[in-house]
């Protein structure tokens, strides 16, 4: 300690440190504001643009004009409402299925010791990272064979490829966190595994299921490649594909106002859910990566 102080130049006055700390604080707040503008401005701008009509759209005024014509048009557009309903149906069904499959697998992988446990986890992780385009040919044949081509139900099946490994992985890390003592008494009493899962663990897993479910829902709601490939007609599209395929008659008549209105409409519920369940979502996202 002492020689360290001797080695350093004379201690500066406390006023110096106070000013330095204040300058640093100001710089930090400035940097934080930049981060906020960078992350939030694009979405704000989409909202502003979606409320401007005609020539106003092309004048970059920073305040919204609050003209909701585009939104009224969207609500009265049966194709857009149809794709919203398709997206909701597909995402909800995918989420429920993935949670049921995931919780069952997570119980085996997180609470029972068996020799191939690590190998199974590794295979599931590998499935979740390989590119979707690789299964496209085989999936096309499978969908056709099942007679599901151009049906929203086909998407539920294909989405399981990414959502099931994801829910399994995250629920396994969550289920492992409960203390062993929880089920020890039940095991001694000869309680079956199914009863332990249903009566002891499941009632405690509400928050884990909620955060995993939200993440799976977002994954399914935002999917593009399979939705683009396995649906053909407008009435069977999901929202991302519908928005992706909106096009003007030429490059100069691109309907940016309408696209921005549709974009805001489909993301508003997501953003609301994400902000409300902020902590749970971060817990879910990091559980899989950091502890795995």
């Amino acid at each position, binding site marked *: 300690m002492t020689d360290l102080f001797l080695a350093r130049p004379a201690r500066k006055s406390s006023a110096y440190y106070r000013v330095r700390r204040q300058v640093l*604080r100001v710089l930090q707040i400035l940097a934080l504001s930049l*981060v906020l503008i960078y992350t939030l401005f694009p979405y704000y701008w989409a909202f502003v643009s979606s409320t401007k009509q005609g020539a106003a759209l092309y004048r970059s005024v920073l305040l919204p004009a609050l003209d909701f014509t585009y939104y009224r048009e969207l609500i009265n557009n049966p194709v857009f409402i149809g794709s919203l309903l398709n997206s909701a149906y597909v995402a909800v069904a995918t989420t429920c299925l993935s949670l049921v499959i995931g919780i069952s697998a997570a119980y*085996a992988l997180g609470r*029972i010791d068996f020799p191939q446990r690590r190998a199974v986890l590794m295979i599931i992780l590998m499935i979740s990272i390989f*590119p979707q385009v690789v*299964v496209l040919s085989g999936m096309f044949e499978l969908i056709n064979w099942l007679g599901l081509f151009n049906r929203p139900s086909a998407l539920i099946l294909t989405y399981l490829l990414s959502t*099931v490994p994801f829910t399994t992985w995250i629920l396994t890390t969550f289920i492992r966190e409960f203390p062993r003592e929880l089920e020890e008494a039940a095991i001694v009493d000869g309680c079956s595994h199914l009863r332990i899962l249903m009566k002891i663990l499941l009632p405690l897993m509400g928050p884990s299921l909620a955060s995993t479910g939200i993440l799976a829902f977002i994954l399914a709601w935002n999917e593009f490649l399979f939705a683009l490939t396995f649906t053909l007609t407008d009435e069977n599209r999901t929202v*991302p594909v519908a928005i992706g395929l909106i096009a003007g008659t030429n490059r100069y008549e691109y309907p940016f106002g309408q696209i921005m209105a549709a974009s805001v409409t489909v993301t508003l519920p997501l953003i609301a859910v994400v902000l409300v369940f902020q902590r749970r979502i971060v817990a879910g*996202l990091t559980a899989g990566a950091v502890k795995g």
Partner: protein
Amino acid sequence: MSARLVRRDHLAAWLFLVPVIASMLVVAVWPLGRTFFFAFTDAFLDDPSVYSMVGIDNLIEVFNDHTWWLAVRNTLTFTVISVAIETALGLAIALLINEAIPGRGLARAAILVPWAIPVVVSTKIWEWMLNDQFGVINKLLEALGFIDHGVAWTASGSLIMGVVIFIDVWMTTPFMVLLILAGLQMISQEIFEAAEVDGIPAWKRFWSITLPMLRPAIGVAVLFRTLDALRMFDLSYVLAASNEKVMTVSIYARDRLISFQELGVGSAASTWVFLLVALVAIIIIGALRLDRAAGH
């Protein structure tokens, strides 16, 4: 526990795994196997039941295709540059949010917004903001005097890859921030306090304590982001359809398969994509293991 009970436990484990194994066999293993199989046939998409075996002709055809190599180069360029920027930016933002400053809670919530928005929507929003005539970015740059007239960000061939990387950085930096932040919070505060008391300057504390302790968290984040970037499809597709300047390997394979209806050649391209991603995954995982073995 008796051997009989242990055996019963193992059986129970496999029973609980039946749904996940069955679903993965149907949607992952079987389609993957069929893709590999079709790669060796001359089948077309309109009637996959009519085909003959052609050996490795398709694999060679893709290998000799100039466009395929363009797509490989684009994909690798995109992956390396965007993951590098995301890691640096993610680290910077994570360190900033980790400080006790007013508004950090707000920033932590705001950072989730770009992450939750669908890729298609983010792409459309930035396409509009980067529009050459009416985009707000060009207006801003003009007002600040950096440019005289609007830059055609998405229309000109030389800039479009930069735009794709820029949008991807905006969308996926949040993921990096969250993972690095989680890593930061696992480092015990006592080490920093000790170092501060000893008069170690801030930059050195960062370089010798924070960075080495963050290595595992950053390693995992880079692995996930890299493999995700290698399969990128929607961003390039929505922004530029099949523009060769930003065509990725996923777009190339899907084009051959769906647009040209060539089930055989398309499957061969998918097989190459699979091999490419597997190779990169092995290299990164190997590097992480070496890192751990070296004592970090």
